[in-house]
């Protein structure tokens, strides 16, 4: 009942239509997207590592994690160093994940955000509940700004998608920046190629 009243009230009170603006000229950037991505990521508490192939990533992970650490992935190529058959479990069971390795569709240079959707996350909560997050992306998949990002997403179908930019953080105590609020405490992006 409120629905009809609210909508009627809005219809009565809304101003005349004005046309939508065109979204052109909104990217005036001059930077190199890959370099900008790396710089910004560092600025927001993440780490960018350029690698030639997946083996290099595995070596780095092996150096930084112990065999007792629970590592999960949605990438079949990493099945040798991480679990990859957890996607149908109750999301709460990911509570003890130390590292989650995923890929992203692409990155955005201006803010180092990475676009991921449910199909590459396994479970929606995975990149949030893990203590540490590793995202893999080809070097040439960096869009300059959010405008190009949404052009690329276009009308893609997904149940859930998110831009992730660095580790979770808070500055709620006296504006002191602390990494690791509720989501991952660290984020490394492997730029491949």
């Amino acid at each position: 009942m409120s629905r009809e009243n609210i909508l009627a009230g809005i219809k009565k009170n809304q101003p005349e239509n004005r046309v939508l603006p065109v979204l052109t000229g909104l990217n005036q950037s001059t930077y190199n997207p890959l370099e900008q991505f790396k710089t910004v990521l560092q600025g927001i508490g993440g780490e960018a590592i350029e690698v030639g192939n997946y083996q290099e990533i595995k070596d780095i992970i092996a150096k930084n994690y112990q065999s007792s650490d629970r590592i999960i992935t949605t990438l079949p190529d990493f099945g040798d160093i991480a679990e990859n058959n957890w996607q149908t479990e109750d999301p709460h069971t990911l509570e003890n994940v130390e590292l989650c390795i995923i890929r992203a569709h692409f990155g955005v240079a201006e803010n180092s955000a990475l676009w991921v959707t449910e199909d590459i996350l396994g479970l929606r909560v995975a990149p949030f509940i893990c203590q540490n997050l590793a995202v893999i992306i080809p070097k040439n998949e960096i869009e300059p700004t959010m405008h190009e990002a949404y052009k690329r997403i276009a009308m893609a179908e997904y149940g859930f998608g998110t831009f992730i930019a660095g580790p979770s953080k808070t500055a709620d105590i006296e504006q002191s920046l602390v990494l690791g609020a509720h989501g991952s405490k660290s984020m490394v992006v492997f730029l491949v190629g």
Partner: protein
Amino acid sequence: MKHSELSVTFNKDEDRVDWHDQTLWWVRQKRDKAAFQLPEWELLRETASQIKHNVLGNLHDYLVQFEANALKNGITVHWAADADEHNRIVHNILSKHGVQKMVKSKSMLTEECHLNDYLAENGIEVIDTDLGERIVQLREEPPSHIVLPAIHLKKEDVGETFHVHLGTEKGNKDPVYLTAAAREHLREKFLTRKAALTGVNFAIAETGEFVVCTNEGNADMGAHLADVHIACMGFEKIIPKREHLGVFLRLLARSATGQPITTYSSHFKKPREGQEMHIVIVDNGRSTQLGREDFRNSLKCIRCGACMNTCPVYRRSGGHSYHNAVAGPIGSILAPNLDMSKNADLPFASTLCGSCTNVCPVKIDIHDQLYKWRQVLVKEGHADPVKKLGMQAMTFTLSHPKVYQNGGKIGRWFMKNTPFLVNNSLNPWYKQRDMPEPPKESFREWYLKNR
């Protein structure tokens, strides 16, 4: 209590006011740095403002379109005319699932509706999961800022609060230590609560999805672990198309904290398998505001808080002095619409300096609206009767040159009639300021002698 009285209390500790002012000014400087890195910044603001204008003119159709798409996506849509209906809808959803305990991420709308109090009265525990909101919740205070809820508190205050409520070490005020304690405390809540409530930053008519932005990841932790996700939004959160997110997400975090984007910008389109997802679309006075030509632009607000950080009055009076869920300049133009007599003081809690209008990412004419609210409030009878008499006398004199000239032997009329120059020690001007010394002659007298 009025803003002016609450500000007096806030100003009793001048060092603390300086600290508050400098902390928020630092956030303003971070915003400047981020904004000025984009040559297209001013064009982005203008574009965002125009998109929002289009939204205001098409709200009815966009909401209907959004609802249809959300339903198609498997989301249940509810409509609430006011705060009370909003609270009842949320309560009903929780009751249906037998939920007694819920986690909630930041939602200024639920503050506006006093949802937590309502649910508490009905025996439901709500845990705010944004760190700042959790801090003020433990202290039984409202947030003092829409983006930085605990900005009025020092780390010593937080340390003490956490010591009492979370059992952290007495005297430990290290933000890293305290944040880790909160992480552990809240992780347990995320893992055990069956329902999660979030706000909505943007709802997209074209797709029926909604976007929630956080730095902490608390909205996602709550929503992705809960069986029931309830998202509450004021109806003005609607935007036409997905591509418009490009504009707003570029502006939001830069304006709010100087970050290039929030850590997480999550797009919820469908419930996950086995989950229920609800959207509550709330009016609560917004359709009235939409009909006020002078004030409807306030509905463009994307809740970035930039106007608060830049406001010289907010920085020196603190958010609580505004006695409204949304404080600062934007709160002062929204609040009178909700309750004119209770909030009649707020549009006067400004020097009309105009800084707010010029940091606003959607170019709301905030300081002009403050001026216009003053006119409305006086006409609606919310002016102090003494002030009204004074103004009438003043107007009479200033409209009649002869009266003005006769009264005006060197400041005599002024001393008597100008509110800020009344020459006695009870005048608030005189408390901390000297009066100008009356000169030998007025300019007019000099002019008559010399030209």
